[in-house]
């Protein structure tokens, strides 16, 4: 089986996600883009697992999904907390760690 197209799609998704993280200011969108990047990685993992006939890649993809779910819980919790405190939902305004 040829994995080329799968990988092209995966790279495309990853690039879209990374671009989103870099250019968007809303934390919610950034979180979405992070999910996109993770799932691009998952796609590549599954494609390779299929190509090599080795199911360990699929198991690894499941682990990544669990991690992604946890990450979404934490990330959304943070965003809700920001919203409750009436902080601006704009990552560029959160610059307290500036050196």
């Amino acid at each position, binding site marked *: 089986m040829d994995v080329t197209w799968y990988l092209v799609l995966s790279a495309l998704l990853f690039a879209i996600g990374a671009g989103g993280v870099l250019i968007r200011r809303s934390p919610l969108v950034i979180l979405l883009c992070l999910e996109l990047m993770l799932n691009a990685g998952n796609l590549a993992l599954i494609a390779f697992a299929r190509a090599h006939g080795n199911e360990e890649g699929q198991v690894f993809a499941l682990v990544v999904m669990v991690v992604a779910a946890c990450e979404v819980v934490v990330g959304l919790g943070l965003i809700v907390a920001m919203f409750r405190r009436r902080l601006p939902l704009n990552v560029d305004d*959160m610059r307290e760690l*500036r*050196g």
Partner: protein
Amino acid sequence: MSATTYGWLVLAFPLAGSMITAFGWRALPGRSTGWIATGAIGLAFCASIGALVDLLDHPVEERQLTSSLYDYASASGLDIDLGILVDPLAVLMCLIVSGVSALIHLYSVAYMTSDQGFARFFSYLNFFVFSMLLLVLAGNYVLLIVGWAFVGFASYALISFWYRRTTATQAGMKAFVINVIGDIGLVLAAFLLFRELGTFDYLEVFDGASAAFSPDEGVVVAICLLLCLGAFAKSAQLPLHTWLPDAMEGPTPVSALIHAATMVTAGVYLIARSHPLFELAPTAADIAAFVGLATLLFAATVALAVVDLKRIIAYSTMSQIGYMIVGVSIGAYSAGLFHLMTHAFFKALLFMAAGSVIAAMANVQDTNRISGFRRAMPFTSALLIVGALALAAFPGTSGFFSKDEIIAYAVERGGIHIVLAVGMYVGAVLTAIYAFRIGFRVVAGPPCEEARELEWGRLPHAEPVNPATGESEDADVGFPGSEHHIAEREPVMRVPMALLGFGALFGGLIQIPGVTHVLDSFLEGSFEDSALYGIHPSTGDAWLGLAFGGLISIVGIAIAYYVWVARRGVGPRLAERFRHLHDFLFNKWYFDELFDALFYRPLIATGRFANSVVERVVVDGLVETAVGVVRGFGSIVRGAQTGFVRAYALLLVTGFAALGLYFLVVST
């Protein structure tokens, strides 16, 4: 009981008295602490007499008894006992110390009645006497050093007794620091002795010394000079004397105690005790003798110029201790100790009389203000004159026999000692003059205001002021009270003064050349190994010396009479005429200023230099450079921390991209 048991009792009573008064003062009302303390010293005196009686039962060559309570330290080659040596020298010192101290305690019971620190005073006083007795009874150099240091502490506590008075606390510190300089000498001497002989025990050291050292060998001279350093600091000899006049800041009974019976005589005792070493080191003994001579002349000249009543007597003490140091250094041991004894009598008496006068003057000590107390205070005046007569060595008094015995011995030794004899005769003239400078100032002349008031029966009770600076003081906290007590109204003060007056007049009768030799034969038990002890001036020479000494004393008293009674204006005119000499003497030969310039100022300047250059420039500079480097590096790195989340993300992405590219390039 054996003599050593009595020796332990001599130590036990004052220590117990000190503890009882220190811890039980709340339960002991009024003057009772004073009576307990006096009783403790009285019992110590009785125990000393017991030791004396027991010692006299032994044959002369078996009069050195030792006793040890327990082994303090015992290791390979090192063996230190908590042990005492009871021999004629120690017993004589015990008798003088406890006897005179008991009288001073008795006097203090009345003199200090209205002081807030009455119980504290007696606790210190008892501890002082205990320390001094420990010093003279110690059986080895280690215990001697313990007693020596205790005496130093006790003197500090008593000189600073009025602790709210700045001048008093400073005087206490001065005495303590100078005494510690002497302690260093004593400790080093003990170390050297241990290195050479392997023991600290007196008898073993003295037995081994003649075999271990050849005469005038370097190390034994060094040991003796270090012992001298300790002796000079305690006995206020040049150049370590500056603490003694300042010690007058303490209450007058303390001055009497420090100056008459205890503390300053410790140096004389040390040299007499270590005589086998000093006889092996004639060089060191001669140096000590000439330091003693220099001190006695120096102090006698200063005593002619200073105006503070107590300080005149203080300089007189230095001068008389100088005689004793000369005596024990040249080998006139019994004469030196005889003078120590008679001096204890008349000096304690002089201080007690001075205390009574100062009380009648409501703490004024300036002799220019004090005059004409002969009618107002007949008892005090009479005993002051008795003390001054003994100090001036008037024929027949105790000082007459003891001082001239030292001089006669110096003449008998001949050679370089003739210089000492001539110097001591010059000192004797000066002594007679200043002794009656005190006597005539206080007794003769027109009555001063306080004396006239007292003749009408009114004793001044002034608000307390510091006699040194004139600052007013609060009598409730560590200052003397506003009440004063004089001998005329206090029988408790009259009894010790009368007893001491008796001793000052007739104490000399125990050692009349050719007639009696009580001390000579008693002390033989301690000095039988001495080659110099057997030298005695012939009776004829001794009487010739006595006649000359008596003549000198009368001449001195006549000069004093001329200057301070017959022609009352002569004194100030002389001071005006020889203004520079007077200033020089009045400022005590500028010794304080000299030490100031030699030690204090350089030390302070070094401290300032260390603060302004070493600390501010070198240390601070190093620290600030290190801080600057870290801060500069930080400000460069800080630029990367923008706080933009997206910038961090970009950095991450580009970083991983670069890493990926690198691996791609490397793998192909």
